């Protein structure tokens, strides 16, 4: 029966894709790049978490969030708060008027650690908070919006406003948040210096590992009935509703999942880059992350990773040589990916390369229905107002 193949999580095509990506990230890049470049790749990969979440939310669920930076930021800040507390031991901060609290608090005449910072002394709490706090936040937004059938453009703009609010709050409450500078000068994790090359390697591999965990979760969702329901909803939401499903619950779920991914990415970012700042929470980075997803192909979870890597790599090299032209290139990319390649890299791959690859593998078989669905869909979401 041809369904047997579908039943397993990774049919051959996908298995190949996962294996190639794993080979690239685990073997090829670490061997061919110096630690500076590898650390950069690690930083890009943290955005891939967000793009991956967007594939599920936007590509599959038809929910475009322009505020994913909020969740990336929440995860990143949670991690940064833990590291900052560790870096602010009374010995390290002896010159402050109140030793033992983060430096920026001291500058703002705060003499006691605020209550919401306290739990971040615990690594376990922090790790849980990284996933749970953003998920709860996403759940609240999701319930408020999707239960009332707010979607499409309205949802996009409201998430944008949420991003704006959070940015202003973080910047305004600098005594508690580090303000516009963010939380900087993070040093150790449980006594282990996170600034060394060794730590950078370790975090890179941790990041890759976590990315694969998220990729597998995403793949599981995609292959489950829930994945098909999302495709169905995007196309004919009423039909799904009149098949006895509470459509909003599925949207809430996928939005929470995407947000949790983004938050994990944020935490990985803090570990690898060594600081967190409100610039990631705002509207501009949130929209940029949407374009990473679009470049990769909004329906392809592996595409999200490649899209992120390609755009960021281009950004880095391009802006090293022609900084002033970078915005033109970025703008053109946005327009091109929307107008000419709505399925992004994954679409191009499926169109031009996929059958060659299959030939190489000596495989002769009709594409699985699922793969066809991916090729054929223009990702044209149905937006209801």
């Amino acid at each position: 029966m041809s369904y047997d193949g579908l039943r397993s999580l990774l049919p051959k095509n996908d298995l190949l894709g996962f294996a190639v990506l794993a080979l690239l990230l685990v073997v090829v890049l670490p061997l061919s790049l110096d630690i500076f470049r590898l650390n950069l790749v690690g930083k890009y990969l943290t955005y891939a978490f967000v793009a991956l979440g967007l594939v599920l939310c936007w590509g599959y669920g038809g929910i475009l969030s322009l505020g994913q930076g909020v969740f990336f930021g929440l995860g990143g800040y949670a991690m940064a708060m833990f590291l900052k507390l560790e870096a602010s031991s009374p010995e390290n901060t002896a010159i402050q008027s109140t030793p033992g609290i983060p430096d920026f608090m001291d500058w703002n005449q705060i003499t006691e650690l605020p209550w919401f910072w306290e739990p971040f002394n615990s690594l376990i709490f922090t790790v849980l908070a990284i996933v749970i706090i953003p998920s709860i936040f996403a759940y609240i937004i999701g319930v408020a919006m999707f239960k009332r059938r707010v979607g499409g453009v309205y949802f996009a703009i409201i998430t944008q406003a949420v991003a704006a609010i959070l940015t202003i709050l973080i910047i305004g409450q600098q005594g508690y948040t580090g303000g516009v500078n963010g939380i900087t000068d993070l040093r150790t994790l449980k006594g282990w210096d996170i600034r060394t090359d060794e730590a950078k390697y370790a975090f890179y591999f941790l990041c890759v590992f976590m990315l694969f965990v998220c990729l597998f979760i995403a793949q599981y969702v995609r292959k489950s009935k829930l994945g098909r329901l999302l495709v169905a909803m995007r196309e004919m939401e009423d039909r799904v509703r009149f098949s006895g499903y509470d459509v909003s619950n599925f949207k809430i779920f996928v939005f929470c999942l995407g947000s949790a991914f983004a938050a994990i990415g944020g935490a990985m970012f803090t570990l690898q880059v060594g600081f967190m700042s409100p610039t990631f929470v705002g509207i501009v980075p949130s929209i940029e992350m949407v374009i990473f997803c679009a470049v990769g192909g909004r329906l392809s979870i592996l595409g999200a990773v490649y899209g992120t890597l390609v755009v960021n790599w281009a950004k880095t090299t391009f802006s090293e040589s022609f900084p002033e032209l970078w915005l033109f290139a970025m703008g053109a990319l946005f327009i091109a990916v929307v107008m000419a390649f709505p399925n992004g890299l994954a679409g191009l791959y499926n169109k031009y390369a996929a059958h060659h690859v299959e030939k190489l593998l000596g495989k002769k078989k009709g594409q699985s229905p699922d793969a066809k669905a991916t090729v054929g869909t223009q990702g044209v979401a149905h937006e209801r107002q």
Partner: protein
Amino acid sequence: MSASNTDFVLAVEGLTVSFDGFKAVNDLSFYVDKDEIRVIVGPNGAGKTTVLDLICGRTKSTEGSIKFRNKELTKMKEHQIVRAGVGRKFQTPSIYGDLTVFENLEISFPRGRSVFGALAFKRDAEVLNRVSEVADMIFLSDLLESRADLLSHGQKQWLEIGMLLIQDPELLMLDEPVAGMSVSERRQTAELLRRITKDRSVIVIEHDMQFVAEIADKVTVLHQGKILAEGSAEEVKADPKVIEVYLGH
């Protein structure tokens, strides 16, 4: 009258809905018996589709009550109404073009309807059997692996009917099921309808009076959101008010 509600599968009483003052359905009452095939006819704009929308929860009523097996539907959400046993087919075929026929039917299979249920859903023998059973019934056994948007218009209509059948609803509502079909498809559909209407009540909206006469137990004629006439197909055809509305002016 209301005392005998319990005998009916569906009891609609005093149903009114207004859109910015315009009363699309106005103080409407009717009752559908168990296993009855009720056809609703009426000129364009009579409020036929709106009645179906109201029953299945797509539109919220302004006033009145809809009781399905003594359960009030007007306060329920769409998916709850479906789960209670009401199935509805839309006027234009609404199926999932990106999915295969198999997947279309599978999604409609009434299991794993919660988020985590859907995540844990397994394609077991029960599902496979039921899908192939329904596919047989709707003449699509050979097309299970095709993408749904490659089907013909008539096949899409059947697929949607199949998606309802797989849920085994007690009340089935069909909005113009043969519209746009070829003659042979129409014949097949009539046969299909006769088969599937055993053991369940059906409300059909239809224009084609010949088709109506063929299938209807009872016909309700709507005009400007109100009931103009009700009875057997013969009675209704002979009703002077109906003739006036359809032919008059």
